[in-house]
């Protein structure tokens, strides 16, 4: 599902740029290709470098398991809440950065350095966004937040959520190495952030990392839906009809979100690296504003 979403975003981007688009299943082909290749490792790569892709991938799968994308009846959701989710993202970041530095190339370190800078700015913003939802529902468990929102009989537009949603989109762009913070399709090694860290990876390791980064984008999209547009997610037990409906709703929401992401990426240029903190502080500010609006105005 996640590679399909990545494929869809690529397709929208290509269409908007007047290019002929790669097929929707291109990411799957990519994975197949990479899994069939022989892995090349640097001579002085330690266990950290080899192990990091597995850790990162596992963390992303776990994150997917606690994000209510189809249903709120998640087996894993009982043990982990929204804060744990942020923790999982942080874990992947730390491992990626360590692995990048482990190999000792200038680019790995460069990427790791920039990633940590972005990371320590996005995490608080993300937490604030999640707290927004939590305060409303009175719990940090994501499924409960979804249930709470869905339980409201009428659709109300919460100003606090609007602030939070905006902040969330900004965090999503920064966290997933999209424009305007990073350029996912660049070949200029000096401008890279995420790509610089994975330059030394090949074959199955690279496949896992790519897959993990698609999963990350997918997870972020699902968290966004859960917080701000949970309609369609099955709430009462696991029924075939409910899940099918939720599936349809998810596909529709992903399609819209993917197209919007592609549109935004096509029309904006990359920010100068040192403008990124301004962008992210803005996200944090918006999230805090959302919180204040909720606390002070009860809106």
């Amino acid at each position: 599902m996640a590679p399909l979403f990545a494929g869809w975003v690529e397709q929208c981007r290509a269409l908007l740029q007047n290019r002929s688009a790669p097929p929707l299943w291109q990411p799957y082909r990519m994975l197949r290709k990479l899994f069939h290749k022989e892995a090349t490792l640097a001579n002085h790569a330690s266990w950290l470098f080899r192990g990091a892709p597995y850790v990162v991938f596992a963390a992303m799968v776990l994150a997917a398991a606690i994000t209510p994308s189809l249903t709120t009846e998640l087996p894993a959701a009982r043990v982990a809440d929204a804060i744990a989710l942020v923790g999982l993202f942080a874990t992947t970041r730390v491992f990626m950065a360590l692995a990048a530095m482990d190999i000792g190339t200038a680019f790995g370190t460069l990427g790791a350095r920039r990633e940590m800078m972005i990371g320590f700015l996005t995490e608080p913003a993300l937490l604030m966004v999640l707290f927004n939802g939590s305060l409303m529902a009175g719990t940090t468990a994501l499924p409960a937040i979804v249930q709470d929102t869905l339980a409201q009989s009428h659709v109300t537009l919460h100003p606090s959520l609007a602030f939070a949603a905006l902040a969330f989109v900004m965090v999503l762009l920064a966290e997933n190495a999209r424009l305007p913070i990073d350029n996912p399709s660049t070949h200029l090694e000096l401008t890279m952030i995420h790509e610089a860290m994975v330059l030394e990876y090949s074959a199955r390791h690279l496949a896992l990392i790519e897959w993990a980064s698609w999963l990350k984008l997918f997870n972020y999209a699902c968290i966004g839906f859960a917080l701000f547009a949970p309609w369609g997610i099955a709430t009462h037990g696991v029924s075939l009809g409910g899940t099918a409906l939720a599936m349809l709703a998810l596909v529709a929401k992903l399609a819209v979100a993917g197209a919007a992401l592609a549109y935004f990426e096509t029309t904006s240029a990359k920010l100068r690296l040192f403008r990124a903190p301004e962008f992210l502080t803005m996200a944090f500010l918006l999230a805090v504003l959302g919180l204040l609006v909720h606390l002070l105005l009860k809106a």
Partner: protein
Amino acid sequence: MSLEPIALEGSRLAANVPAQHRVVDADQWTAAARQLHDAGARLLTLWGADDRDRDGVFRVFAAYLLPGRALVLELALAAGDPTYPSLEPWFPAASRLQRATRDLLGLGAGEGDTRPWLRHGGWPEDRFPLRRDVSAETHVPGVPGPYPFVRVNGDGVHEIPVGPIHAGTIEPGHFRFSVVGEKVLRLEERLGYTHKGVAKRFEALPLLEGHRLAARVCGDSAVAFSWAYCAALEAATGATVAPRATCLRALALERERIANHLGDLGALGNDAGLAFGLSQFSAIKERMLRLNQNVFGQRYLMDYIVPGGVRSDVGPRLVRPLLDEATDVERDVVALKAIYDEHAGLQDRFKGTGQLAPLTAKAMGALGLAGRASGIDLDLRVAMPWAPYGDLRPHGVLSMDGDVAARVQVRFDEVMESLRLNRLLLEQLPHGATSVSIPALGSRTTGLGLIEGWRGPVMVALEAEVPSVIRRCHVHDPSWQNWPLIEHAVTGNIVPDFPLINKSFNLAYSGHDG
């Protein structure tokens, strides 16, 4: 050392532009350099020749650009001690040219940087491939040696080595950054990875085939290099090219300029993360290249310019599509320029990035497009127009800002000006022959071809001998002058802005390495 001022005049040199030639001794060589520097002349290029088989000496030549003319100084060097006074104190651009001349011919400049430039250990230090007694056929084992980069010391300073193999499919060059955090304190380039021995190859070619090699010195400037070669050859042999042929050559040169500028404008957008720009500009460029294929028989106009004229005529049926295309290109470029100008994110990346102050540009001897973006008002089409530019009266483009935005602006303006010339040429295409035959060579002769390519002045110095063979051919790309500018432009900027700055200059690797 003589401090007497020397006359900066000489005998007429066969060339497509006003050019003079003067033989000097070592003292005059130095005195002339000082005088030329004070007079605001620019060093265009420096090269050597092995004439030991003819009169027992080596020769070193320096070509200068003065207002309205070129001046070539010639200095003979004893075979036993082939050293000459360095020009570096007055012309910083001489440094790399002198290092390359030593690598290829063993002619040493008195002082300055003694590290090799083109020799990357591909041949031993005591072997000089361009000497006439060294055969191009013999294989020599490589002897890689260390290459000490200038180190920057200090708290928190570290180096980032980049290239010669890059993350994308681009040409090889090594860039050594000394940085603090993301800020660039110093950049040192190392080039020469694409040295192919073009000069040596020329010496094995018949006179009438050299234009084909010249066109391949730097693929994106095929027209400029082959025209410069043909101009040198025609000047040397005294051939006069028909007006129709010169107009068709100018048409090809302007099309090359437009196509390259469009490609760069797209790539600059892309490097700032705006992929939309790349796809739009690439589409326009591709349309031009396809029309090139139809009209001129080759997408990049390779081998269209031949000694004596052009390869094929542009018939009346083909003029219409070319004019229509010019209208289309102009409309699209105007629309895209509006988008670039109004895109806040793009302008934020362009403005103030990679600033090259006019004073620095002047001191470093900047040439061509990069120079014109930093206030160096020199366009050979305007300054010393050769046929047919005298009649066309092109307008020079100039900007004083010297940043990426200025180089983008100069490209946009030059595209519009070239489109105007393009239309003018097509509408007033004279009738007549498109090719004349080159007279047979009576004796040893020399010629100079100087053409304003899209990057800047491209020069070919040709020495021909009986029976119609090339004795020595020196080709010069303006990238020699402009590569060191990037080292200055990038200082104080942040590392992730380097690709954008580099692209805004878009200098040649192949044309430089030779």
